């Protein structure tokens, strides 16, 4: 074999081995475990805590209110929909939940809008329907 070819061959081998060493060093742990990504990323995506704890958690202490609600029109509504996420409240009941009582809050669902399906929800003209009063003075939210 001519000397220049031999040298080229050695150079080639060195470059190829450098490539493999770099590939080994730069590929993160668990890459390619399930596909072209880090397998650990699946676990990382699943670790953080849930903030909305679900109505099942509410029943444990507030059974009477939950029962009341299931008999009314708001039965499909999750407790946390109006009261906000309950993860802090579950840990310590000192952490109070939200008690929204503004007309605007009720209007998010019940103000007349042509796009709302008429049979799905009761709608009112928010300007016309007792404009000065809070909704909750006549309508009890758990059994509206």
């Amino acid at each position, binding site marked *: 074999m001519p000397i220049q070819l031999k040298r080229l061959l050695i150079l080639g081998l060195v470059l190829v081995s450098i490539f493999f060493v770099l590939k080994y060093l730069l590929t*993160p742990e668990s*890459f390619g475990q*399930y*596909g*072209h*990504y*880090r397998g650990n*990323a*699946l676990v*990382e*995506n*699943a*670790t*953080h*805590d*849930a*903030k*909305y704890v*679900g109505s099942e958690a509410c029943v444990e202490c507030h059974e009477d209110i939950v029962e009341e609600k299931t008999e009314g029109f*708001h039965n*499909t*509504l*999750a407790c*946390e*929909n109006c009261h*906000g*996420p309950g993860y802090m409240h579950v840990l310590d009941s000192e952490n109070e939940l939200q008690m929204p009582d503004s007309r*605007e809050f009720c*209007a*998010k*669902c019940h*103000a*007349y*809008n*042509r*796009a*709302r*399906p008429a049979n*799905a*929800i009761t709608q009112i003209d928010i300007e016309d329907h007792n404009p000065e009063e809070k909704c909750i003075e006549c309508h009890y939210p758990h059994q509206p």
Partner: protein
Amino acid sequence: MRNKEENLSRRRFIKKSGITVGSVLAASVIPSFNAVLFASEKPKGKGLWYGIAIDIEKCIGCGSCAKSCKIENDVPEEPFFFRSWVEQYTIKNDGSVEVVSPNGGIDGFTQTVPDDEIEKSFFVPKMCNHCYKSPCVQVCPVGATFESPDGVVLVDQTYCIGCKYCVQACPYGCRYIHPTTHVADKCTLCYHRLKKGLNPACMDNCPTTARISGDLNDPESELSKFIKTRNVYVLKPHLNTGSKLFYNALNQEVR
């Protein structure tokens, strides 16, 4: 002399026919080219495979989904970033279409067009379609975004380099660059909740149960039954993204 020529052309004819028939037979045995299969078929797999369905006929546009998503996933309130949001479509009598989404629908909607000018109007909740042929996954140069084995498109936030290529690639506008981490962020179908046995926050907080998520591979799941019994449609089917978000009663004006 003449006989010899005839013999030669007969031999040539038999030879050529043999090659043709042989190659046709061989080609029929070899499986079709993968790219064609990829573009036309669903992946053959067993086990959990998440999909979503949204019933437009039930959506009242309260914005609970958008609000609970922001709270559950620490999506920045400002600027205008959403993993899940609601749009109001209004088709006017003259045929023009108006689309509004004030703060993603979180503060509710006020009708922008008077009743007598409206042909029809409806709400369209939007979120990541969790496509199985995701453009966003295909363009990622480092493998930081991927489809999980159970069919949820996720971002590896420690590995993402923030090149924004996926933000540009998503035809549904479902991705953004997080202002504090500076990497791509998107709907994870509340992967952390799914793994704890809970439903995604937007589904749990929908007052009219207009949103369902579930297992597409299970023919008995609520989702599979919903898809079977209704006229469902995906957004931008011509883009062949393999969207797994099925809408009931989707109007053709929706983009």
